[in-house]
């Protein structure tokens, strides 16, 4: 294995590693007697004017963005957060049952829906208020957004798999087949269309969002 090849291997290992690597760890991947230190210095030189530099931190080596390009990096390490189970389920219910009021979500889930759960979903711009139910108190109804469709690569919420399809795809494994009839998709509600958010009575008829 020539020197160039050893350099390439170190380069690949350092690139793919999720933590800084010691020269000893790198040496283990190279033929015996390889001069790892020399290879690392050569690699460092190769990258010195690049957008990425090879740096030595606490005796270990790693690639990192050149310091003069730090402006490209996000200031605070904003890690993607995981949604809570309740939030995912609420999102799923809104997606399948929209437009749906908070009380209806609670009814479907069998547990209360905290304000925080809906807030999180709205903050993620996956859920938004879509109108008001024509029932006493005119409760607000929720639906999914364009961002939701983009996130899941859907053309429309109608593209979400139905229960039979979920079952066929193996999602409903634990459900006894005999009980599948209980799992029929919800019947569309025979109900007056929701009021649009602007409460404009005259135009409300055409604004059915199903």
């Amino acid at each position: 294995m020539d020197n160039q090849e050893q350099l390439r291997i170190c380069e690949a290992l350092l690139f793919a590693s999720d933590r800084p690597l010691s020269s000893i760890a790198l040496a283990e991947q190279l033929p015996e007697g390889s001069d790892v230190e020399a290879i690392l210095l050569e690699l460092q030189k190769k990258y010195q004017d690049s957008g990425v530099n090879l740096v030595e931190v606490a005796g270990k080596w790693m690639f990192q963005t050149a310091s003069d390009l730090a402006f490209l990096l996000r200031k605070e390490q904003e890690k993607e957060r995981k949604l809570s189970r309740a939030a995912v389920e609420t999102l799923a219910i809104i997606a399948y049952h929209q437009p749906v009021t908070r009380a209806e979500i609670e009814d479907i889930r069998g547990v209360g829906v905290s304000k925080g759960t809906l807030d999180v979903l709205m903050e993620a711009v996956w859920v938004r208020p879509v109108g008001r139910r024509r029932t006493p108190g005119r409760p607000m109804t929720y639906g999914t957004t364009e961002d939701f469709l983009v996130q899941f690569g859907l053309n429309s919420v109608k593209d979400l798999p139905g229960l039979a399809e979920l079952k066929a795809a193996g999602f409903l494994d634990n459900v006894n087949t005999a009980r599948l009839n209980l799992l029929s998709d919800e019947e569309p509600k025979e109900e007056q269309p929701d009021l649009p958010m602007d409460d404009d009575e005259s135009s409300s008829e055409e604004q059915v969002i199903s």
Partner: protein
Amino acid sequence: MNDKVDSDIDSFEMPDPRLSRGEDIDDEERLIVDIEGFEGPLDVLLALSRTQKVDLKQISILELVKQYLEFVTEARALRLELAADYLVMAAWLAYLKSKLLLPEEENDDELSAEEMAARLTYQLERLGAIRERAAILMSRNQMGRDMFARGAPEAVIIKQHHTYDLSMYELLKAYAQHKTREAVADIRIRKKAVFTLDQAIERLSGMLGLALDWTSLEQFLPDDLIDPQLIKSAKASMFSATLELAKVGKADLVQKQAFGPMFIRARAQDNKKTEDDN
């Protein structure tokens, strides 16, 4: 296509590794293939057709039919559990074979034997072709196995990701789990309409004092029952109750004929035992 890929495909396709190595298995043994290794009749047919060592386009359908029918016969002789679709395929192939052997009849409504055979060949070829592609696909360099992305990615402003990370799979899983829970929560076992033995004994004991003469069992039945299920249950329990009371010496029983009505009366304390059980 090189040999390596060829053998990849073979080992991918052949449930019995010996089949891929060729015919060092004698005919008889070759048929005793582990049925579990196959995924249905088409799978078996494809494996069998490979043993003909010719381009699928040139396989002998008659030979293939023969091999398949032998395979099924063999499997049944060995009492291997054959799913119904294997037998359906066998019947279809037997029909195809007879059509291929008999002179062609003019019949516009039905496919000719050649057309049927060609369709089968097409299906086998298509499955064979997709398997080849599957093997080639899997033998490609794969991310995370053969090549790697940056191990320690840094957050760059370019990533306009959502604050929250959620996949379609997770969304569907959540809905499915909700539905599963809902199904479980919905199980309601209807309370059975039962007239218990205890109830019956209590009722009978109380009523026997009023009936000093032989009285038909029917008359002891509660008359306020409407549910047929409950009436049945009451009859059974009352009958058991009469046996129970007779056993402890509180009642006498008589039944004149099999399936005939049963009469009961309270036993006087000094009466001799005249129990007449059925």
